[in-house]
């Protein structure tokens, strides 16, 4: 394989792995902050135990997110040096601002929180986790603005063959970025909601009246329900945004070949990119694609045939990933809505609890599929319409990249096993024993 393909594989390995940890960091920090705030306000020790228990899982996950994030920043330089040089004026500042404004805050206060139980008042301690939660979401926002600029470059002028920043606000406030941010954050919050619900379900199956896990479950349920509803609505707006900005991506995620008004959606289709058609099309819903993309059934939607072959993304992975993601999104809505109706008799519905344990990985998969749609759907461009991925790779030897790719694969596999088995073990173990009656401030000033 050549340096380009190896570098693409390496970046894929590194980002997918990184994104196994990021969404939980984003969402679980919020949930812990909510739990600890209830403790700080009411003084109910059980909520403190909740913050500590979920916090323990959070910290393992957080550390993995940090160490795998560092490699991503470095890889822009090591493997995509031509890209880095080309976009440095716009992409670089966004990363630098992310580190300066948010990442310091997140990393400093996570330590204050983890080690500061006996050094801070309950309120100050709750503030620390809120800072972590807000900083990590802010951090995601900056990164997503940078990614959105690759999807939809704005706010620049070409100078000596390079895009040069001329309107920072346009970069930061563009619509594409706002949609991406909402979509990604909501997805991350769903991951965390299902994570807490699934682990709580595991314990509730064993101890049905355990108030610790009943309360945890309900907090996570409301959280996940709100964002599942939000995600479906936002996902639709997202598709409509795509229709305007990236017609090639829209056409390939629907395997839509012929430019047409009244464009249909097929419930089932198998794309056949060799022959510019779908080999099977079942369940035609006429006008549905036009309606979804442009809010009117008669609108014309560009088909892949009208996009030059060398500017089309790979259709099959984009199409399949998109379908699966949407189906999972619907499933999350169904599962959380069911949970909402069962909320006062959760413990007695063993089937639902069992399903929720097995549902833990699903939102993770949905996130990975979403990124597949976003990133493969942007191909062959690395910066949409400006620079092709093939022109972005570093002038390094393929043997170097092959070696580092092998190392990434091995190290990440082992780390993944270590981290997830540790999380699973700690999750099964359950919380520390909670003292029954105790003044809330007993631990201060130790």
């Amino acid at each position: 394989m050549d340096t380009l393909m190896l570098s693409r594989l390496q970046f894929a390995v590194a980002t997918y792995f990184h994104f196994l940890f990021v969404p939980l960091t984003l969402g679980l920090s919020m949930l812990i902050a909510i739990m600890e705030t209830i403790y700080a306000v009411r003084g109910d020790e059980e909520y403190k135990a909740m913050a500590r228990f979920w916090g323990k899982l959070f910290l393992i996950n957080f550390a993995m997110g940090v160490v795998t994030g560092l490699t991503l920043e470095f890889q822009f330089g090591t493997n995509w040096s031509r890209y880095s040089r080309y976009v440095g004026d716009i992409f670089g500042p966004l990363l630098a601002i992310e580190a300066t404004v948010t990442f310091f805050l997140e990393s400093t206060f996570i330590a204050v929180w983890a080690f500061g139980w006996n050094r801070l008042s309950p309120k100050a301690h709750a503030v620390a986790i809120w800072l972590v939660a807000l900083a990590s979401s802010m951090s995601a926002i900056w990164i997503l603005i940078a990614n959105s600029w690759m999807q939809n470059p704005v706010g620049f002028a070409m100078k000596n063959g390079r895009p040069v920043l001329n309107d920072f606000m346009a970069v930061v406030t563009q619509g594409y970025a706002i949609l991406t941010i909402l979509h990604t954050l909501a997805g991350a919050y769903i991951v965390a909601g299902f994570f807490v619900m699934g682990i709580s379900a595991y314990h509730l199956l064993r101890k049905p009246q355990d108030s610790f896990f009943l309360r945890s479950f309900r907090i996570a349920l409301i959280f996940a329900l709100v964002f599942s509803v939000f995600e479906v609505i936002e996902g639709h707006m997202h598709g409509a945004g795509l229709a305007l900005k990236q017609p090639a991506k829209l056409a390939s995620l629907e395997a839509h070949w012929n430019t047409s008004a009244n464009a249909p959606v097929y419930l089932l289709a198998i794309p056949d990119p060799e022959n510019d058609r779908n080999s099977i099309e079942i369940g035609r819903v006429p006008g549905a694609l036009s309606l979804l993309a442009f809010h009117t059934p008669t609108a014309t939607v560009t088909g892949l045939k009208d996009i030059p072959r060398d500017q089309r993304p790979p259709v099959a992975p984009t199409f399949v990933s998109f379908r699966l993601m949407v189906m999972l999104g619907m499933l999350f809505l169904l599962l959380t809505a069911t949970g909402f109706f069962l909320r006062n008799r959760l413990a007695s519905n063993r089937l639902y609890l069992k399903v929720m344990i097995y549902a833990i990985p699903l939102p993770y998969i949905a996130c990975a599929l979403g990124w597949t749609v976003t990133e493969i759907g942007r191909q062959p461009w690395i910066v949409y319409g400006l620079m092709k991925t093939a022109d972005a790779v570093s002038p390094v030897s393929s043997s170097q990249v092959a070696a580092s790719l092998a190392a990434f694969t091995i190290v990440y596999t082992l780390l993944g096993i270590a981290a997830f088995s540790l999380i699973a073990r700690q999750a099964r173990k359950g919380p520390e024993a909670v003292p029954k009656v105790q003044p809330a401030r007993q631990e201060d000033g130790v």
Partner: protein
Amino acid sequence: MIETIWFVLWGVLWAVYFMLDGFDLGLGTLMPFVAKNEAEKRIVYNSMGPFWDGNEVWLITAGGVTFAAFPGTYAVMFSSLYSPLMFILFALILRGAALEMRGKAASTGGRKLWDMCLVVGSFVPALLFGVAFANIFRGIPIDGEGIYHGSLLGLLNPYGLLGGLLFLSLFLVHGCLWLAAKSEGDLHQRAAKMSGRIWIAALVAAALFLGYSAIETNLYDNYRAMPALFIIPFLAVCTLIVVRVFIGNASWWKAWFASCAAIAAAALFGVAGLYPALFPSSMGKAYTMTIYNSSSSPLALKIMLVVALIFVPIVIIYQAWAYSLFRGKVKEQDSGYEKVY
């Protein structure tokens, strides 16, 4: 003008990174030699626990600023130093995982494995950052396309290795001093003793490095053109000597602060000599990446400067507050690492 401001900030960011992460890299390397039993090991881990992550963000920021302010340099520097950077990255990954997971390992075997990850993961960056920067001071064989024409072993030339040993010995002293300030009893005694011994190595390495730089690099050109700059290496040597004085007085915190200053001054010695180059080529002056041929547009630099001027002081304030929050000695009965979580 603004390019020069960013050059200074770039140098300061790297210096601050080495000054802060230096102690936990050094202490991580020394852990098995200084801690003799499980309780002592836990104290060593605990003494770094609340700090390493925040320290590492300075590296992320230094990398991010290189990307943002000098994308041309970032591209050439990171791709030409591909293999050594990958070694550093993997080391930092293992180290971070060890720091977080070691305390939760179920078995002694598991803890031993993580201990090894910590040692390797701390030693490799401590050494290789020195090797990499010494080679940068010396010039890297890159052509006009930014393509690297050397080998991995070529970086391990005598000057590069000396740079590595200088960094390593400074970080080891820094780590010993930190532990001496944070611990009590036998552990404290051992760390204190070690700090004095390794200090001799650091002094020798520093003296050799300052001399060898005159032969091997063009760093002193700037110093000859602007003799006031000599204050930087002078301060580096002075603060290193002050470190020894405080070790003699058993004033561990003062010694640690002096060691901070020595590390920062050592890094800035090289940076000041580089200006206006960021990444010199040994294959021809025209190929050198400088602040003129590799910087971002004035608008990008201006926006980032505003952000930096507002946020870096805020970062310094809350990081200093966090350091002071955890300033006391780490005691065995805290057994913090496992219990706090």
